[in-house]
């Protein structure tokens, strides 16, 4: 994540962007950041500067500000920017292998201070979502994905929407609980294609 200087310049950048859109920038309570700075240290791959929220995180960390007219303006601005930043697959092929996708959905590995650089991350999908009928060990933080493709079909719109959601769920709902898979390099392009296939391939157990 960003170090302190980048955090401050991001705030300044946010201030410029925000002012140009008629929205004032947001600062986190300095007393809170002081506690965070004195309390955390880098461990393994988890760098200390992960404590500094980016603009989206800052917005979604403060419910009162989010609910204010200014906050709502900022939400729309950030959501729009998030959607615009998503890239389609580099070769134009959206669908990978659903079997690999299900393995990814099961895996919660990656990015903690006990994980190693270069090891493949998982998508952690089952932590929050029901995905296949067979797997009962699933969370309920996100909606059920059972029958995802069967219910929606394979139109261009659905394919692009699903791709975008996996890349950056916050492009549609800025305070979505779902991690931003592409934005933070949680999943690679191929991995996201495999998750696409898990959800949309008619042969996937999700769609039986």
């Amino acid at each position, binding site marked *: 994540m960003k170090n302190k200087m980048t955090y401050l310049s991001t705030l300044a950048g946010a201030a410029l962007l925000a002012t140009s859109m008629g929205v004032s920038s947001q600062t986190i309570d300095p007393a809170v950041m002081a506690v*965070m700075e004195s309390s955390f240290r880098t461990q393994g791959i988890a760098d200390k500067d992960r404590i500094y929220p980016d603009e989206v995180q800052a917005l979604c960390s403060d419910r009162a500000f989010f609910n204010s007219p200014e906050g709502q303006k900022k939400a729309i601005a950030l959501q729009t920017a998030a959607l615009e930043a998503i890239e389609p697959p580099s070769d134009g092929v959206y669908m990978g292998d659903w079997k690999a996708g299900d393995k990814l959905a099961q895996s919660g590995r990656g990015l903690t201070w006990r994980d190693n650089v270069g090891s493949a991350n998982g998508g952690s999908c089952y932590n929050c979502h029901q995905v296949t009928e067979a797997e009962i060990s699933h969370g309920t933080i996100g909606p059920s994905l059972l029958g995802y493709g069967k219910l929606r079909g394979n139109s261009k719109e659905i394919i692009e929407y699903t791709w975008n959601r996996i890349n950056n769920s916050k492009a549609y709902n800025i305070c979505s609980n779902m991690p931003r898979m592409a934005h933070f390099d949680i999943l690679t392009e191929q991995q996201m294609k495999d998750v696409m296939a898990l959800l949309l391939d008619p042969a996937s157990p999700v769609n039986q």
Partner: protein
Amino acid sequence: MKSHLIAAAVALTVSASVPMYAVAQSAAEQLQEYRDMLADGNPAELYEMEGEELWVKPMGPKSASLEQCDLGLGAGVVQGAAAQLPRYFADTDKVQDLESRLMTCMENIQGIAQADVVKASFGKGLRQPMEAIVAYVVGQSKGMPIQVPATHPKEKEMVAIGEKIFFLQGGPMDFSCASCHAVDGQRIRMQDLPNLTEHEGAAAGWGNWPAYRVSNGTFWTMQRRLNDCYRQQRMPFPVFGSDVTVALSMYMANKANGGEMNTPGLKR
């Protein structure tokens, strides 16, 4: 205990013939049944017994016991002490939770340097006897009401900071405590998540940790529970006994005020 484990395993197998959502329900029920069976002999009790011995044992460079340690109710008063923590202490002029207060006592009375305890790892070295002492101390508040009204200005300040930190997102998955613990009736995989922003959920959380954690086969203090939360949030490492841990503890305990101490608890 082994026969209980066999009974639980049989019960889980039998339930496999039941329709899908019913299996999910009864799996959660079976897990609770299994926990109830274990609660009859909570393995945390072994830690409590060890801690009770260590409390009176001379230790450290000064070869002194913790019997004069003031946990908030006076020197050496252990019964009920955990139920009123975290709290403000005049001698250190700060709000402290149980583990940071124990570090103060270990340093002042026994000569064990706080920095060495902070540097150590959970379940090892200097932390090991400390964790047993934590089990003992919290056991001496079992069944009592949580008493963390946050009347002192510094306590109020910590509650306020703790609440803001609770909602503060960070790291590559944008997680805050609130990502999982701010809504009723949610679970990660099969693990139910208490809503820590409401009294009932906060009491369920704060009142049941520290606990023996079956999946790790070991006793986890609250500091360890918070540490592992931050690890799973993909955040950096919260230093042992640091202000972030005390602030979050203060927020939860104050929200849980009036609830029941069921410590040491028993967790999956």
